């Protein structure tokens, strides 16, 4: 039995390696992005990495993101699984949202979360609307099934709406 498990682990690891090595694919550019962009790496190292995104999914719960954004459908904070972005959908935009916060109630997590984890969160948040590659997105949840898996999500075409559109 344990040999089977070990074999499965190795297989899994190999699959993960394979996925990590694939080329990063570009996403459709968002329209009307804010002009100010915090200088950050233009590519998120976590973006094409299934393990990193799975980490992001767990951190999303551990840091209570889910309390405000639910499982992407929103609540106290806006939906993150839909096509509409208030502050842009690019990795650096999402990074800025998390690190600097946003005026209408998004707390600034900068200094409270290690940078590596922020990038994992960024990749997971983008996975919710299918902005990351299909094969690296989480296929299941540890919890009560409240939505289809991120992997099953059809990618949205991101639209950036002016934040003032949310009174």
């Amino acid at each position, binding site marked *: 039995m344990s040999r089977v498990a070990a074999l499965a682990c190795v297989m899994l690891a190999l699959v993960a390696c394979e996925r990590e090595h694939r080329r990063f694919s570009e996403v459709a550019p968002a329209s009307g992005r804010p002009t100010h962009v915090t200088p950050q790496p233009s590519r998120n190292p976590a973006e094409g990495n299934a393990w990193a995104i799975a980490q992001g999914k767990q951190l999303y719960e*551990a840091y*209570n993101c889910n309390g405000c954004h639910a499982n992407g*459908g929103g609540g106290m904070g806006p939906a993150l699984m839909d096509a509409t972005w208030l502050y842009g959908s690019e990795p650096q935009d999402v990074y800025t949202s998390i690190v600097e916060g946003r*005026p209408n109630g998004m707390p600034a997590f900068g200094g409270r979360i290690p940078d590596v984890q922020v990038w994992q969160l960024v990749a997971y948040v983008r996975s919710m609307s299918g902005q990351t590659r299909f094969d690296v997105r989480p296929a299941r949840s540890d919890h*009560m099934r409240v939505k289809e898996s991120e992997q099953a999500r059809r990618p949205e075409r991101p639209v950036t709406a002016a934040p003032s559109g949310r009174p």
Partner: protein
Amino acid sequence: MPGAQEIVDWWNAGRRRHRRRVAALGVALLVALLTIIVAVHSDHHALAAVGEDGQWLRAAGDYASTRYSPLAQITAANVRQLRPAWSFSTGGARGHEAAPLVVGDTMYVVTPYPNVVYALDLRAGGGTVRWKYEPKPAAAAQGVACCDVVNRGAAYADGRVVFNTLDAHTIAVDARTGRELWNTKLGEINRGETMTMAPLIVRDRVLVGNSGGELGVRGWLAGLDLATGAVAWRAYSTGPDRDVLIGRAFRPFYAADRVPNLGVTTWPAEAWRIGGGTMWGWISYDPELDLVYHGTGNPGPWNPDQRPGDNKWTSAIFARRPATGEAVWAYQLSPHDLHDYDGINEQILLDLDIKGRRRKVLVRPDRNGYVYVMDRATGEVLSATPFAHVNTSKGVDLATGQLSLNDEKTPVLGKVVRDICPAAPGAKDWQPSAWSPRTGLLYVPHQNLCMDVESVETGYIAGTPFVGMNVRMYSGPGGHRGEVTAWDPVNARAAWKLKEPFPVWSGALATAGDVVFYGTMDRWFKAVDAKTGELLWRFQTASGIIGQPITYRGPDGKQYVAVLDGVGGWAGAIVSADLDPRDTGAALGFVNAMRDLPAHTAKGGTLWVFALP
């Protein structure tokens, strides 16, 4: 102090006795007398049965929270002719839960965040803006408002309009000019504290409480000085007796509650500091007993395994002295609450014949699904009867006051527990009932929802949610999601029930014309026969209704009925906050039950005022 115009109005109201006496006095005396008269006058306002003078001075109408108006021009016989007289856009896009106020010839409306106050001049027949006051609350408050950025209304006394802002300030403005008189900061949004409730003013005390039960906020009710806004006292719902203002006068009815510091000992160490029990609902006042009654919200987090114990005094009712805040009795409706059954609903103060005896009672249609009829002098539960479908509990033992739970519905860590009824918003949430002394019925707007839950371990991070529960709600038995129940509290049974497709998230209003008004989330403002529930009239507004209808006599002597539309609130957040129904757990699981709402209404707040032709 009321302004000159008001004094003149009063003067002209025909109190000749005073006038003759004044005429005989010198100028200095006149001033002194005026001051006294003004004081008496404002007290008279407060104690008069609501609406006798055609005004509506506080969200619930009267101190007893009956939402009953003796105005009777609009009757069951003629209400079919009711039509819109005028309307007014508030410019707000989020949930409008407030009751408008009418004082003299002016109407006051508070919007959801950004909490703009409008004074509308009623003299020209419509509503002309007399002034507009913008408090400009901190924008970040929006992110910590659990269930939409609502406001439940203002209160009027002594020439002041007093209201709360989402960023936890209480503000008094001059009713005539809109000038800010005082502005008191009461809470910290960085800790998740907001304010959404409508204040109650008792003599020179403004009573206000906080929101944030989903963010580990420690709940309180505060008494402010009406003249200056200074905090006279603050009574916490959890913690040591001295913080809860439990002292020598405290005499709860049930012996088990007469133990010191239950607000500490019924919690794991220090958990009471982040344990909820917020006060975002209703307060009533009995001038004869000189007691105010208020509830307390749910304990936090929702995950009950993280807070073993009764978690006192969350999900409870308190009787307090308005001057000092001192607790006189308390009763916990849902000890160690398992399902977010906040205890903040309204308490209607009535004198009823219960089992052949005249009793001063408090009637509380609670979130846990029972109508409690209590002796309001002592805190004794006289009856507790389910008014909706309940499977989480099996009744209340009247000897001990204890709610007996159904263990099958207890959340289990990491396991999905299904078919829990009522769901987290309860059989009835904040939406206030109305009472008619003419029919002896309480008109209770409420919902019919059940839920599946999975409790999960959660950590406290200040200013973020502290919930620990995955929730998915859906309609209860029958498939309809809303009900209006006409409840007979003497015989503890429903006289009739109306079904509505969506939760009835608006308040109710009862009038001497034997008409009951309420609004629906699918945009209908309805008038039904107070005796039978028969639908008499309805009008389709612009957006879904979750506000509190009121009635008043206009300067032209006609009776008007007013209500704000503007869908939202916890139930309507799917529309007001553009939530995504593909996540059935959005808005703490409410979205799953409301997926079809966007097909029936868009957002946007409008005040509607109706009259007979």
